């Protein structure tokens, strides 16, 4: 017998490997998982199913679109651009006329100037309570990174924040070594226009300012935190927005927390209060405005917004339109596919379409050994 091949089967290396290191078999285990034979299913996209899927999407989306559009149109929204008008009105009270931006800025910056005015808003449609009252500011970058981070959570939670921690609030972090509470630019630029409402018949319209802020925002604030060293305590300080009372806890000031939650975009609204009575067509709402907040520097506008809500929220046609459009598009696609398929039907698993049965593709591929010159570069 030929031993040559025989001897070769027992090299010392393999013997060691088999006898000492791996006594047990290395045979892989059979499971459906390990052999990648697990049961799998994905519905095959047959033409009928494709049409059905698009149709279904369309059929579901269109009613949603209609419903949300209806909800949106049911909302009554009144907007009053009072910023400039109100300032001009106030200026007129002291016989000034404001023509340029600079004049307006200097007028509003002067604390001794009168800033109040009254605007009349005519109700055209029935507005069912609750009616939400917002102020809207444009061109105000509350989402600027410098602005957004300029507040101290620990400080508001009542912790003794170190000067280091308060650095993010700079330059409104401390006054004369004493921390500013609440620190930072957000609080410092606190919006401070005020509104009081009355109907044209003289009955005042109460505005409920409770519950306008998110509860979570209020939760972040300890009830033992009081304003301190805030701009009102330093006559020499550079005054930004509104001042804060030092005798009531910060937590109770819901307007502040509404303001402190930064808006996403540079044009934003903030909830100011709720009118908890219906307003009828023909009603005229007299709004007395303390118009003190400086929007003129940054070319912003101030608006007062009264709006009811639907189950979807405020007046926003976008979602409804989008749903309707996409729904219609899907229906159109379903019909399109249906007719395309109808005019060029393809049997499923049509073997003629295999690349190897398709002359054009076969030709394109060519035969390997007859098209070699392209290989060399």
């Amino acid at each position, binding site marked *: 017998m*030929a*031993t*040559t*091949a025989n*001897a*070769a089967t027992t*090299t*010392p290396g393999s013997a060691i490997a088999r006898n000492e*290191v791996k006594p047990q078999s*290395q045979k*892989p*285990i*059979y499971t459906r998982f390990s*052999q*990648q*034979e697990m049961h799998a299913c994905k519905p095959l996209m047959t033409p009928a199913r*494709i049409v059905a899927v*698009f149709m279904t*999407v369309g059929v579901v*989306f269109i009613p949603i679109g209609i419903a949300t559009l209806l909800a949106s149109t049911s909302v009554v*929204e009144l907007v009053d651009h009072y910023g400039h008008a109100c300032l001009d009105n106030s200026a007129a009270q002291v016989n000034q006329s404001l023509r340029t931006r600079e004049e307006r800025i200097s007028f509003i910056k002067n604390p001794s100037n009168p800033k109040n005015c009254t605007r009349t808003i005519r109700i055209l449609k029935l507005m069912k309570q609750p009616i939400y009252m917002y102020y809207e500011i444009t061109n105000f970058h509350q*989402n*600027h*990174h*410098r*602005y957004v981070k300029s507040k101290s*959570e620990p400080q508001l939670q009542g912790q003794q924040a170190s000067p280091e921690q308060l650095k993010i609030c700079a330059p409104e972090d401390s006054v004369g070594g004493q921390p500013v509470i609440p620190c930072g*630019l957000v609080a410092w630029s606190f919006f401070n226009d005020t509104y009081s409402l009355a109907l044209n018949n003289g009955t005042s319209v109460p505005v409920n300012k409770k519950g306008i802020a998110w509860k*979570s925002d209020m939760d972040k604030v300890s009830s033992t935190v009081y304003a301190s060293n805030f701009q009102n305590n330093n006559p020499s300080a*550079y005054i*930004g*927005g509104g001042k804060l009372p030092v005798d009531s806890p910060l937590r109770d000031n819901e307007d502040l927390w509404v303001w402190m*939650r930064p808006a*996403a975009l*540079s044009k*934003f*609204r903030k*909830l100011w209060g709720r009118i908890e009575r219906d307003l009828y067509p023909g009603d005229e709402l007299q709004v007395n405005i303390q118009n003190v907040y400086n929007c003129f*520097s940054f*070319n912003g506008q101030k608006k007062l917004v009264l*709006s009811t*809500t*639907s189950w*979807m*929220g405020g007046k*926003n046609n*976008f979602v409804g339109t*989008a*749903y309707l459009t996409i729904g219609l598009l*899907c229906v159109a696609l379903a019909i399109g*596919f249906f007719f395309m398929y109808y005019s060029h039907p*393809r049997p499923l*698993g049509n*073997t003629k*379409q295999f*690349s190897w049965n398709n002359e054009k593709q076969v030709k394109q591929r060519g035969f*390997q*050994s*007859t098209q070699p010159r392209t*290989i060399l570069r």
Partner: protein
Amino acid sequence: MARGKNRLRFSKLYTWAGCLRPQSPLERQQSMSVGGPGFSRVVFCNNSAKHLQKPYRYKSNYVSTTKYNVVTFLPKALFEQFRRVANMYFLLAAILALTPVSPYSAASLIAPLVFVVGVSMCKEALEDWRRFIQDNEINNRKVKIHVGEGKFEKREWKKVKVGDIVKVEKDSFFPADLLMLSSGFPDGVCYVETMNLDGETNLKLKKSLERTVELDEDHEFATFEGKVRCEDPNSSLYTFIGNLEYHEEVLPVGPQQILLRDSKLRNTPFIYGVVIFSGHETKVMQNATDPPSKRSRIERKMDKIIYLLFLVLLFISVVGSIAFAVRTKFNMPDWWYLRPRDTDMYYDPNQAFLSGLLHLITAMILYGYLIPISLYVSIEVVKVLQARFINNDIQMYYPETDQPARARTSNLNEELGQIDTILSDKTGTLTCNQMEFIKCSIAGTAYGRGVTEVERATARRLGKDPRVLGDASIVEEGERSLGGDGSDVEMRPMSAKPHVKGFNLKDERLQDGHWMDQPNAEEIRMFLRILAVCHTAIPEVDEATGTITYEAESPDEASFVVAARELGFEFLRRNQSSVIVKEPGPNRVPVEREYNILNLLEFNSTRKRMSVVVRDESGQILLMCKGADSIIYDRLGRNGKQYWNATKAHLAKYGDAGLRTLALSYRKLEESEYEQWNATFTKAKTTIGPDRDELLDKASDMVEKDLILVGATAVEDKLQKGVPECIDRLAQAGLKIWVLTGDKQETAINIGFACSLLRQGMHQIIVGLETPEMRAIEENGDKNQIAKAARESITLQLATGNHQINLDTDDDNPHALIIDGKSLMYALEDGLKHELLNLATQCASVICCRVSPKQKAMITRLVKEGTGKATLGIGDGANDVGMIQEADIGVGISGVEGMQAVMASDFSIAQFRFLERLLIVHGHWCYKRIALMIVYFFYKNITFGLTLFYYEAFTTFSGQTAYNDWYTSLFNVFFTSLPVIALGVFEQDVSSRVCLQFPALYQQGPRNMFFTWSRILGWMANGVYSSLVAFFFTTAAVEIEAYRKDGQLAGIEELGAAMYTCVVWVVNVQVAMALSYFTWIQHVFIWGSIALWYVFLVAYGAINPTQSTTAYKVFVETLVDSPMYWFITILIPVVCVLPYAVYQAYQRMFHPMDHHLIQEIHYLQKHITDPDMYKQERTKAVEKTHQGVSSRVRASLSMELTKQRFYGDGHLQSTGEKQDSMPRHVDNRLESPLINGSLDKTPRNNFSYKV
């Protein structure tokens, strides 16, 4: 072999050219240089203690192939990690996160980086650990070391020191480079197998110095002393220069005395040697190159995508920074609420340029999500899991050796799916290196009903009953082998005897002594006698059982002796001058006969034959000769050609069946004629000088004439199981298979036929330098002249070849290129290699023979770089290491020989046939998985990253994000990672069964249909679209108006959370649409990821606002009650995937791809209801190829058809018998126009091989 009893002087038996020749003056001259520069090494034999001191302190024998050790791991592995551009970028981002520039908190940037780098490093550590274990196994092998006073003890290899005397026993590896002192044979020779060094399976003879031969007992080493001065460690395997100072004599030492580490002692009981080089200083280790780090094509392209994304990132960062600077300079002074006069440098209107620059850094960090930090780690995780599945594939497990497939480096999985050319070694890869005597032709009658693997495969292809071929048993056998069980046990109904290794001749006419009843019994007797006598094998008697085994120089020779024994001529003993054979006597009683060996005319590559001159007991002098048929034919006497025509026909058939054939002949010599010749021969033999070989050849020629042909043998170089089928399928999958072998041209061509890489009718283009003119130049020319002539010859041959192919566009008769190593030496030079490649790529098959390991690597590089396509190198020996490392993918056969190939490989399999599954199933899957995974990854990060950018634009690029820091950093880690991993690990377009049924599907990989730029950019565009929709739809929906019934308005928190929700939905729905394989795992991962986001949002929102900041209660308090929020989370994913859905629907409906159609067929169960159609498609679903069994069958069918046209109908009915009986022209190939002048000399390829 028992020592003493049978003290056979091997040196007498073989007249080895070279080794016993007197030292040439050149060699003598070389040894003079010892002691000079480069030759400073001094080894004190038997005194290894001396080597503990300087300057003799050499490296220990501990070998380590690990990349790291405990100390270097951290710095080195970290360095490796941060060589990746993306990681470096993220490191910078993490460092910058500690400064106020960063828009994110430091932790949210550092944590993912630590995770990502940590995972990669763990993987590195694990792989290195495995290498360490392997090293350990080798370092702890045992060898006998002299411990003093003539005692030898077993010690670990790692304890072997330079200067030690070691005793290596039979069939063990040498632990280091040794200077051989003596061996178990009295003349100090030993046999060495250098398989691991050069892949050659034949044994090499080494011989110790005459002076040290006597040191062959343990006790003699008690006093042995000596000093070796020699060359410094170097990588040249075949040279060695040194002196041994022994007994006050200086003896020159050459390569003949050096036993190299990793080679193996064979056929020799033991040797003594002194360690010269150890550990990393050994020649084989000096040869080892660091494994190249390979990267797949896809990954390389991915880098380009990352650069592209970097550009995008840079672009949007610059745009953002410019916008920011402009706004800061011109607008910000008016924004009193930002206190423009009291700002720091980051927002200083007076230094807008500086602020802009700082913002650039911020922006780079901010939009960093465009570049997926987790991409690398996800890919790594996916590939490791893919590799696990490859390892666990039970259908690639080989029970015989208990070897499963192993993905040794997992980062090339997808490259498996893109292979274009396979470069295969032969011995041990395609063949088992096991010869079986399977057929013979005696006196014009063919014997042997055994069926070769090739015939079996052909028969199966033809759908023919294989019984026609002559053996009833093969039907079951064939079926079993199809079933793929690895057992090699074959049913042998013909005889109850157990299978004898090396013998597989099944013919009742010959077996059990029946041959004596045959009409031509005398010829058969002579035939068997030649087999039993004309060889150089040595019998070895197992004293316990009394059975005889044969030690032969090559396995084919062993098979002859075995065949002779099985048929009644048992070769019993050999002594110094004769061979004793037990053969059937006149009355069928076995008698022992002694044949006196008078002369032995050895084999060499020019002679292609061997002969013995013997005197039998009757005193008759016989010359027995076996050799290549063409050689024998030329030497047949006038009366010796009686059976020539019949034999030639048989030889042709054997050749086509892939068998190695030899013709046997003899002649009777008269006493006087012999005496006369013997004088000439002896004179030639004793000549010293360069003419010796020539004189010997001439002398041999004188007697090897007037021969009488007896018959021919056919030995099957046993192919590994399933090799022809596997090659067939691989060819059908469009893969090109080249064979690169160290074997001779004839052997290589034989195997080419056996594997159906070659077939009758192919035009063979043989490029070689074996022309008479070349030989003439070589004999007298100087080096330059030879090289010049050779180069010219090769240039001409290549040009003619190319020309030939261009003229000949006949598809039915393709070309095959056969080129040898010598020619390659010139053809691989810069000027010619493109010619060569051009020619080779136009040929259906390429076979390179006699190639050195280095040439294998060079060819691989040529193909890889020349064609730009992926190559796969497969081999089993150390000589394939270069090729394995050079190829895009190296596959090692974890066979029985050595581990080098496996160690160097990227994948190891136990059998060649598993390559099919590895490539066509795993390769196909992995390619599609990774390709889809990467494009999807970019898609999801673009979708996410760009929403950050858009929001930035609305915050005057101040660096504010809409999302909470932790949303962003967890995006890639938690909410989108598992589905993409599931995609990368489990995705299947079609099942493994279908992959194998439709090999053409594989071409999707090499054609790279799923990772084209259009596809990548398409997905990116999809990402841009999705980001636009996600951002603008969300902002439009939750704009300034109340977004819920209670009148509240959305701030950054609500917008961010809503938008993020939409993005999470979008990317997960998108992956669900892109997947085609949905198991519960995918469902859990995809829908679980979305659910996880809500869970996270709730949980994170519930913790202290100091930590959760903007996420505090954002979901439970504000979003959950808002119908608007829920409506947009439905709307936006639908809008985002709409284009993809339309594209998919359109493609599926009107331009389905192959795998879509197959999915449909399976969905409709058409493969069950209409099996004919299915079968038909399966047969059509192949790439056009000229390799493999199928193409051979196709060709032979079309040949039959042509014939039918000539001869009329009726010829086709009995194709089987036709093939058997049709005397096909022997040298069909020779009729094809050949280019090489040398062909007249060499080409009867099938019929010659080494004796």
